[in-house]
């Protein structure tokens, strides 16, 4: 094999560790707290649920065991994930399958946590029910499709005292943590951040409706209706529908706008936005959105632009933080991560951080390439010098965030995206759709971010 992870070795090791922990857990006695073994259920076994389960299996975390799965697509996703879990019985996994989440919560008495990856409009009901059953919850973003739903999730988390992690996985990505902790806060390489821009553009081919193969059994119409879907097309493409999801600004933008607020240490004070259903037929949510936020930070005002489009993939996805001394361009895609020193800033000022290993001078481009047809123009600034971010990540993108969740259950870490943070981001992002709809600048008061 081939990647950083030798899966066969891992499986042998994990199988041994899993068995050992199971025995040691039993030895503690039924009433003893046993955080070595954490029993997990997956609620929502679609594509994203499978991504999270795969990331967790890859995480090699001893003692984390899937013991149940629930999905309304009985004859396809539920069957698939249940059969996958059966492959890992040697790790202590169980493959019990449910179509009714209430039945699962009533039946599975030894559950500790639930991973929720259902469509956004189910997040509040599912999360609240799980926490009220005494279970810790990892809930995919968007926290809810409504601010009211997200608010109730925060309230339930406080009432029950259970952990609620929202799936903004960049919050646990070591590359992002390095940029914030080391490059921005400690080394202050950007100087004063004044402007942000970011985007997630996808090609037309990536945004076509998902269609059901003739060979794939559909969900019964009565079941679809029972769970709030008009038909299979809406079930498969729920992100495009109002009342069910939030469109690309929520599906894609939420991950990145969350980083804006994290790195600035502030919530926005206003948003203006434009967008529309300009290209795709039959989609309810805007297929392109451009938004501008205003932030007041401890260092001064910041304006932040964000765009998402579904017809052209130009320049992919990234976030760009611009300060008066440097620029950070980062993306979840590990291949993109550079920090640029403004031309007027002395190289010697950044050298100690290169020596310390915070930035990689050797892989950057310290001297801008000369253009043959360029002439010295006093109106142009001196080109910035490029350094690479020195931290890489080879795990699946969701693995560190899941690890953080389980480490929080074990009491060794604090959640990186607890309910309150998820709520602030939900407000920030859901307000964009409102701003588009109203065609107005929306003032965002500090109390709107509080529960």
């Amino acid at each position, binding site marked *: *094999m*081939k990647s950083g992870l030798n*899966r066969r070795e891992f499986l042998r090791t994990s199988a041994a560790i899993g068995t050992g922990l199971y025995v040691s857990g039993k030895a503690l006695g039924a009433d003893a707290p046993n955080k070595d073994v954490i029993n997990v259920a997956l609620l929502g076994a679609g594509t994203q649920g499978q991504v999270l389960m*795969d990331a967790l299996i890859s995480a090699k975390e001893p003692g984390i065991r899937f013991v149940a799965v629930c999905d309304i697509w009985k004859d*396809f996703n539920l069957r698939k994930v249940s059969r996958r879990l059966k492959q890992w019985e040697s790790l202590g996994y169980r493959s019990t399958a449910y179509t009714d989440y209430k039945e699962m919560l009533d039946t599975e008495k030894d559950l500790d946590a639930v991973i929720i990856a259902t469509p956004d409009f189910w997040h509040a009901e599912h999360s609240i029910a799980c926490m009220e059953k005494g279970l810790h919850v990892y809930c995919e973003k968007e926290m809810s499709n409504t601010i009211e739903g997200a608010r109730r999730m925060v309230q339930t988390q406080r009432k029950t005292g259970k952990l609620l992690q929202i799936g903004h996985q960049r919050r646990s990505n070591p590359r992002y943590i390095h940029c914030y902790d080391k490059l921005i806060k400690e080394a202050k390489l950007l100087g004063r951040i004044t402007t942000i821009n970011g985007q997630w553009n996808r090609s037309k081919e990536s945004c*076509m409706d998902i269609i059901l193969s003739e060979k794939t059994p559909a969900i019964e119409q009565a079941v679809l209706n029972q769970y709030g879907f008009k038909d299979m097309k809406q079930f498969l493409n729920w992100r495009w529908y109002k009342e069910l999801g939030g469109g690309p600004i929520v599906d894609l933008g939420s991950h990145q706008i969350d980083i804006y607020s994290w790195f600035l240490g502030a919530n926005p004070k206003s948003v203006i936005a434009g967008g529309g259903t300009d290209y795709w037929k039959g989609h309810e949510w805007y297929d392109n959105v451009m938004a501008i936020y205003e932030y007041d930070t401890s260092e001064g005002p910041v304006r932040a632009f964000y765009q998402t489009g579904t017809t052209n993939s130009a320049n992919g996805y990234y976030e760009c933080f611009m300060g008066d001394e440097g620029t950070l361009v980062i993306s979840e895609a590990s291949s993109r991560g550079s920090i640029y020193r403004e031309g007027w800033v002395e190289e010697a000022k950044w050298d100690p951080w290169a020596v310390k290993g915070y930035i990689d001078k050797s892989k950057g481009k310290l001297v801008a390439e000369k253009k043959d047809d360029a002439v010295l123009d006093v109106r142009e600034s001196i080109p910035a010098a490029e350094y690479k971010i020195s931290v890489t990540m*080879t795990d699946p*993108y969701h693995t560190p965030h899941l690890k953080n969740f389980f480490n929080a259950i074990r009491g060794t870490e604090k959640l990186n995206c607890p309910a309150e943070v998820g709520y602030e981001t939900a407000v920030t992002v859901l307000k964009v759709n409102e701003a588009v709809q109203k065609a107005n600048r929306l003032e965002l008061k500090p109390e709107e971010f509080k529960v």
Partner: protein
Amino acid sequence: MKHLKVLVLLMAMTAVIGGCSKSQPANPGSDETAAPAAAETSQPAAQVEEAPASADAQTGDLKPLALVLPRPMFVGTPENLAGIENLEKPLGKPRPPFMAPEGTVNLALNKPVTSSESEPITGDLTMVVDGDKEATDGSVIELGPFKQWVQVDLGAKSDIYAVVVWHYHKTPRVYFDVVVQTSDDPDFVTDVKTVFNNDIDNSLGLGIGQDRHYVETAEGRLMDAKGVQGRYVRLYSQANNQNDYSHYIEVEVYGKPVQ
């Protein structure tokens, strides 16, 4: 080993990149030369021969292979491709035409398929050769973790010029230990010839491969079989960069029955 009757050559094509002339690579999916040889070679369990080189074969009337490609579809959260060893750079443009003798057809279509797992996690084995190459969930079969294989019975000994495989192309993904072999022996004990092998550390015990890891796309992976002969084609794999499972959307085997 029987000598080849037909020469299969990639279309002679010169690309001008960055002011330098660059000849067509041996591997049609890569713009880089083959990976360096691994340090040690373990003895494979079965009798295995490498497929003969194109240069050993004879010239015939060549036509571009007419491949029907599925709809490209990269959706969902992107997957992390960082840290994968021996990964070739994407070609960055459509694959050039593959030249094969006139009369070459897909011999695998609707032929019998067997597998290391009689019942896949999803789908059934007939889907591997049903002509459906779409990325949607209903078009792919999933096999469990560890070493897995699917095998197509072409029905008769055939000259094989190319094998095209679509493991999965819903997201950019890299499959590990991809080995493709042909044989006249359905058990692949004797007369085994290797068409493709990127098992860089001999995880499967079939020998260390010299081919590179590659990113799956809607184009599928075209493997030059150089006119090797055989009745059966077996495709191995073991996990991918995202999860521990093996997937097959479609396998096509281009050739002609031996006259």
